[in-house]
Every structure is written in structure tokens, then in C-alpha cells.
């Protein structure tokens, strides 16, 4: 039981550290350019975590994450601007709608695996993008929706109202949701659900022989992963202020996939590290012009070639090396 207790301690320490990092970051990066990047990081962390739950834990290659992101963004924005729904109700609706879209897609794709599922989900991403682009009466197509307000100011009793026009406040909000997503998945993976998903990922025939309804659990994982993408999307409109379909083009799905792969498939820290690195790296490389795309591509290739476990594996190796040899 001492190992369980120490594991719990190290988990609380990890969450505490994450809270401190989130609290300190906007104090270090005070200009709006870097604060904007911080928020993009937090959104990408959510997208990568959601995808990794489907890909790394349930073993389903999903290339539709950009579509669930877009569904969340458009649903939250349209509910507010068209129907006057309060922001947080619209946000909840966006999460539900994206999750529901994931459930429906996975019900259709149930019999598909591996490459076929990847292509079906990519097709879904293409269709969703085309709908956002061409259903002009609803989405205003490529013109986009302008002047989307940020989430309404939050009035906590006894404190001054928190205005989300302030990028630091908005970062705290989005990063808080990213941390909640992480906590939610962390808890699910440590529960019997994690064991069930691992069994399905490893061998569906065996899992079925143990009484596991593989189809139902894959639908669940898809729904959860896309709901988290929808939760990221729900903040997008209010954060950027304008909403155009281009942000949810299929290349976004591949960028999110790259974040998961570079970070480490099937770990929770991996997608976080991968999302941060692949968000910040292109910004840091802006100085070298178009050459940055070459450097970016080369860095990606090197990671996949020499560190297939991603940054999470590298971090583990480094920690084991630093740790004194006599402690287990």
C-alpha cells in the first residue's frame, strides 16, 4: 500500500505543479502575442488529449478531430449569436453536439478498423469542412462570423468580476478546462474503463471472450474524445473574435495527430508536451521565414524515427537517468 500512497502523493504533486505553471505563465509572458500563443497551446492540449484517448487508449485511428473542433466552435458561437443562448449553456450544447457527432460517426464506422476507419473519419472531416464553408445562410461561409464576444465576465462573490477580454484571464479559463480534461481522462484511465479499453486495443477477440462489448466501448471512447475537442472548440470563437471554416480544415487533424505522436501515443503527459512543442516551435521559427517549415518537418521526422515513444518516453528516460540507482 505504500506504493499506492506514494503514487497518490506524486500525482497530487504533478497537479500542483501544473497549477503553479498555469498561474505563473501569463505573468512571465505579458505581451498579447505570447499570451495568445499560450491560449492556443491550451486549446491544442485539449484537442491532443481528446485524440489520444481515442487513438492511444482505445486504439482507433481518428482523423476527424478537426471536424469535432469545428462543430464545437460553430455550435457555441451560433447558439450565442443567432439564438441568444447564454454562453455557458451554448458551451455545454457545443460539447454535447461534438460528442454526439463522434458517437454517430463511430456507429457508422463500427465495422471499420485501422486505415479504413482513418479514411472514414477523414471523409467526415472533409464533409464537415465543406458544410461549414457552403451552408452560407447559417455559417456565412468563407466570409466568417465577426465580432464574436468572449465568454461573459465571471462575477465571483467578494471578488472583482473577471473580464475575459483580458487574455491572461482567458488563458486561466481555457487552461483550467484543459487541466480538467486531463484530470477526467486520468481518472477514467485508472478506472476499470482503462483496463477495458486496454483489452480492446490489444486484442478484440480476446476482449469479446471476456464479455467486453467492444463496439459499445469504442463508441464511448469516440464520444468522449470528440466531446473534449468540442470543449476546445467552444472557446475558439470568443477567443479569436472571428470564426471562419479555414481553422477547421483537415490539415488541423494531422497537426493534432502530430502532437500526439511527437508527445507520445498512449500517455497523458505526451499529448500535453507535444501540443505545447508543436504550437510554440513554429512561432519560435518565424524569424527564418519559410525555412521554418523545413525545420519543423525535419524535427517531426527525427522524433518519429529516433524516439517512437515521443517526448513522454524521452522524459521517462531522462528521469530514470537522473534518479539515484538505489531507489526503485
Amino acid at each position: 500500500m505504500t506504493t499506492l500512497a506514494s503514487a497518490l502523493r506524486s500525482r497530487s504533486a504533478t497537479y500542483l505543479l501544473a497549477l503553479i505553471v498555469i498561474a505563473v505563465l501569463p505573468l512571465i509572458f505579458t505581451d498579447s502575442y505570447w499570451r495568445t500563443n499560450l491560449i492556443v497551446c491550451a486549446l491544442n492540449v485539449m484537442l491532443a488529449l481528446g485524440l489520444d484517448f481515442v487513438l492511444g487508449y482505445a486504439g482507433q485511428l481518428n482523423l476527424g478531430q478537426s471536424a469535432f473542433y469545428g462543430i464545437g466552435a460553430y455550435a457555441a458561437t451560433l447558439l450565442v449569436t443567432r439564438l441568444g443562448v447564454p454562453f455557458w449553456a451554448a458551451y455545454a450544447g457545443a460539447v454535447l453536439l461534438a460528442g454526439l457527432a463522434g458517437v454517430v460517426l463511430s456507429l457508422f464506422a463500427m465495422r471499420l478498423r485501422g486505415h479504413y476507419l482513418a479514411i472514414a473519419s477523414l471523409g467526415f472531416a472533409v464533409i464537415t469542412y465543406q458544410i461549414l464553408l457552403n451552408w452560407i445562410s447559417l455559417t456565412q461561409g468563407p466570409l466568417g462570423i465577426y465580432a464574436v464576444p468572449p465568454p461573459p465576465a465571471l462575477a465571483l462573490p467578494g471578488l472583482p468580476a473577471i473580464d475575459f477580454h483580458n487574455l491572461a484571464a482567458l488563458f486561466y479559463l481555457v487552461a483550467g478546462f484543459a487541466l480538467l480534461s486531463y484530470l477526467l481522462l486520468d481518472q477514467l484511465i485508472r478506472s476499470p474503463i482503462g483496463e477495458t479499453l486496454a483489452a480492446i486495443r490489444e486484442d478484440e477477440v480476446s476482449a469479446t471472450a471476456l464479455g467486453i462489448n467492444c463496439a459499445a466501448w469504442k463508441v464511448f471512447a469516440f464520444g468522449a474524445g470528440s466531446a473534449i475537442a468540442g470543449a476546445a472548440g467552444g472557446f475558439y470563437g470568443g477567443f479569436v473574435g472571428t470564426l471562419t471554416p479555414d481553422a477547421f480544415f483537415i490539415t488541423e487533424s494531422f497537426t493534432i495527430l502530430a502532437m500526439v505522436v511527437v508527445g507520445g501515443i498512449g500517455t497523458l503527459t505526451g499529448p500535453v508536451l507535444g501540443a505545447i512543442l508543436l504550437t510554440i516551435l513554429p512561432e519560435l521559427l518565424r524569424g527564418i521565414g519559410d525555412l521554418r517549415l523545413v525545420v519543423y518537418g525535419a524535427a517531426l521526422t527525427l522524433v518519429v524515427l529516433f524516439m517512437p515513444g515521443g517526448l513522454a518516453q524521452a522524459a521517462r528516460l531522462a528521469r530514470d537517468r537522473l534518479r539515484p540507482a538505489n531507489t526503485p
Partner: protein
Amino acid sequence: MTDAMVAADAPVLLRASGLRKSFGGVHAVQDISLGVAAGAVFAVIGPNGAGKSTLLNLLSGVFRPDAGRVTFDGADLTRVAAHRRVRHGIARTFQKIRLFAHLSALDNVVAGFHIHTTVPAWQYVIHGPAFRANHARCRAEAARLLAFMGLEARASVVAGSLSYGERRMLEIARALATAPRLLMVDEPAAGLNAQEVERLVERLQTLRRDGLTILVVEHNMDLVMTIADRVLVIDYGQHLFEGPPAEVQQHPGVIAAYLGDEAPNVKP
């Protein structure tokens, strides 16, 4: 003779009648009927390609039969999905061992407790007392099953790194985690050395003494003669003979089809 004969009036636990299954033009199983008495060890033997594994897949629900019925303890399972049959109390292993290769031996067995997980849904997110109790119970039970199959020292080893014999034993331990009433094992002795076969036989006999009904598909005649109460012989997907093991050895058709011209070299 087997050490414990099953009472002649023991109720039939698993019954199959008129099972048929064809793949294209191949009639893998043609009109097979069988009844496995509760508490018995029922063996299915036959030459390679006789349809033994297909029969097992029909019984466990991997395949739907073209015709015929499967009932278990009175319930009609013919149209019941494979994963639902486990909840009725049917567990199985595979001829080609199927384990969760990247999970530890212990975690392989823990996955077997899926249908017995008693945790309210909200505790999957907020781990409460029921969650912790279930967690502790599954791991203790899994460790007990590993010890029973002689794998206690290998609990934390990744299943893919276990020896062949250990993997066979682990697959049985994992099937037992579902708490079955009927265990169907597909060629459990294949690839095992004599010592491992002996341990396997001893474990199966212990399980049977504890009340488990066992259906075994097997090539190893020694094993079949030692543990089976009743033997079904099939060839080319067809029923050839069914009876007690002693009679199987005498039956001229069986000897010709399965054992060749020479009488089997087995101890009575």
C-alpha cells in the same frame, strides 16, 4: 477409468442440436449435436481440419450457425452475441493463444473481471470506496488465480515475454476470472512439454472437482483419456462417435479415421 464419474442423471448444462456451418463450399460442421452434463469433462477430438475449432466458435458465439441451436442451462443462446454469452457463464481459450501481449500477466487476468465490476458509474471519475474495494478485490482475485495456475512469480511480467507454456496457463487464468460455469479450452496441451501437460491435467481436475464443467478440444490422447468423462469424435465436420473414453479406443471407425491402424498407446 476417470477418478470421478459424473452421475448419469446429471442435468445437461450445454446442449447443441443440429449445428451446421459452411464457409463457401466447405462444410466445416455438419449436423453436430452434443450435450455436456453439468460437472463433466467433455472432450471433442478429431483429426486436423475435422471442424473442432469451428464447433467451439459456434458454441462460444464467434460464428453464427447456418442451422441448429445452442442452449445453455435452458436458455437459448443461438442468437446471443459472443460477449453476452460470457455473462451466462461460458468462458473459453483459443487454439492460437490470444493474450493482451503488452499488459502484465496480472493485468491480463484483471481484464477478465470486466463483467463482475461493481462500481457505480460516477466513481469511474471520482474514485470512491466502491472503486477502491473493486480495485483491491480484482487484484487479489487475479493474484490468486495466477498462483493457482503456477504463475505467481510472473505476475508483473508482460504477457508477451512469458514462455509458451506460461502463456497457455495465463490464458486459462484469464478465462477463469470471468467466473464461468463452463470452461471451453481449445487444445490446451498443444506445445506443452510432458511436465507442463501433467500440471495442466492436475489443474483441470482440481477445477472439475470444484464443480466447473469443462469442454476440451484436444489432440493429446493421453490427456483426453485421463480427464474426459465423455468423448465426441468428429471427422470432416461430421459426428463419428460419442461415448466414454474407454469405448473410443475400441471403436473401429475412430481408430481408422483418427488414430490410424494401430491401437492407441494409452494407459487404461
